[in-house]
């Protein structure tokens, strides 16, 4: 996910990545730190892209059920 702008600042991302690495090592003590950092960056970039959408509850329901049917639960 390298093509998205991110709303996370670098220090926030670093914290996210450091915290993730600590928790990853709880179940995978030999986890590659670079791989975890890459994973954290991809998650942050993808989430930043979704934060740019209008997800106000008045336009998008809070429930997370999904149907591929185009007539089901239109948000607009």
């Amino acid at each position, binding site marked *: *996910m390298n093509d998205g702008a991110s709303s996370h600042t670098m220090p926030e991302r670093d914290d996210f990545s450091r915290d993730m690495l600590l*928790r990853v090592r709880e179940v995978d003590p030999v*986890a590659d730190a670079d791989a975890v950092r890459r994973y954290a960056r991809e998650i942050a970039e993808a989430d930043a892209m979704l934060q740019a959408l209008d997800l106000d509850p008045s336009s*998008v329901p809070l429930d*997370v059920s999904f149907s591929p049917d*185009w007539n089901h639960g*239109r948000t607009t």
Partner: protein
Amino acid sequence: MTQTSSDLLELSIQELGAGFRQKRWSPLEVARASLSRIEATEPQLHAWVEIDTDRALASAAQAEREIASGQDRGPLHGVPIGIKDIYDVAGLPTRCGSEARADAPAATASAPSVAGLQAGGAVVLGKTVTQEFAAGTISPPARNPWDPARIPGGSSGGSAAAVAIGACYGAMGSDTGGSIRIPAAACGVSGFKPAFGELDVAGVFPLSWSLDTVGPIARTVDDTWRMWQVLQTGAGLRQRAMEDPKSPPRIGIARRFFFEWLQPGVRDAVEDAIARLTENGMTIVASPWPDAAAARACAFLINRVETASVHERVAVEEPERFSRYGAELRVRIAAGRTVPATIYTRAMRARRIVKDSVAQLFDQHRLDALLAPTLPTTAIPADRLVIEGTGLDESVGAGWTRLTMPFNATGQPVLALPCGLDPLGLPVGIQLAGRPGDEASLFQVARAVERVLDFHRARPPLLRSLAPAEFNEVPR
């Protein structure tokens, strides 16, 4: 004219079935031809994890008796197929390509989708190679029939490689982020991702339950359609006939996102395909989809969190077993556990927005389908797993799902088919996304596109190098 085993393996599913019914060849002859092709190509392709020879021959013999007695189970009666090794097949272990499941017991029942194919008379030859737990696009140790030094794509890589080399007429794959379409594109065959929820995924090891779909891979659109028909019948779904379109299809192109960061050879082949479709009367409509990148982000986030959830118990409670997972998957699971719930719920809610926006796109432009390249590159070397030539620095996993994942978020049906070759002689694929609930129309468009592009008869060069014994006359 003398019929060789290789001639039989070149037939379409329709031609094969017609010959069975006319007693020109038999299911046993064809099953033996398939098994011979597997034996001849496995040393290079490694597409299968288990060949179930005895049961396959017994199933073929049963089909032979039934057809001889006038019983007709439909288009797959007596047709050899492969099943990706994340599906339960009664009598065989489901190892999911993982050392952690090396000791898996034989399944006691087949997944409903497999049972439907078997009820339709399909002859299951065995299990095909999958990327570990269907989480990735490499599918080791399987290789690509167009160049065995390259990967077949994944995660249904064994299925696509087996179909491309003619070892079977169709194979089942699964598609959570593109795992049917990606190997179909890399191996030059067709693959169909049904709409989310259309087919029962029970008995298939989950990757991400909000995105998982199961579907067929076959050499042509028509063969894929016949497998889809049998899967529909097995699932008790209402079938629609695939007729020729009454008017030339209207096909949308979203250049922003889908035509960015492609290898030049891929771009040229897809642009050439679009030009030929236009020359042949199809209407190509510029159809910008501003939410394509957001759709990909939705699918990516949902996929990562749910994959971690599926494997969390093993990660936490069975450390020895977890240590037998591949290193990359261990990180994906261990890191996925740490993703905040707010990120997951945001992705699930945003999914509605991207689904609605693609629905509006189809309505606004009166589209029959949206066309996009399936992969940004052609098959990459197995000993150099990097994306090159696109201008974007990304991993193979990210790059090879970049163009497929948006449609896992929208949940709509998508059909992948080959459109040409790059300068290295490797297949380039396109995908056609359609309207949910109207799969027959999507197949109609795809068949019309396939006729124009006329690539579906191309075969991997590896076939020409097979030992002459493989071309022996079929014993009568």
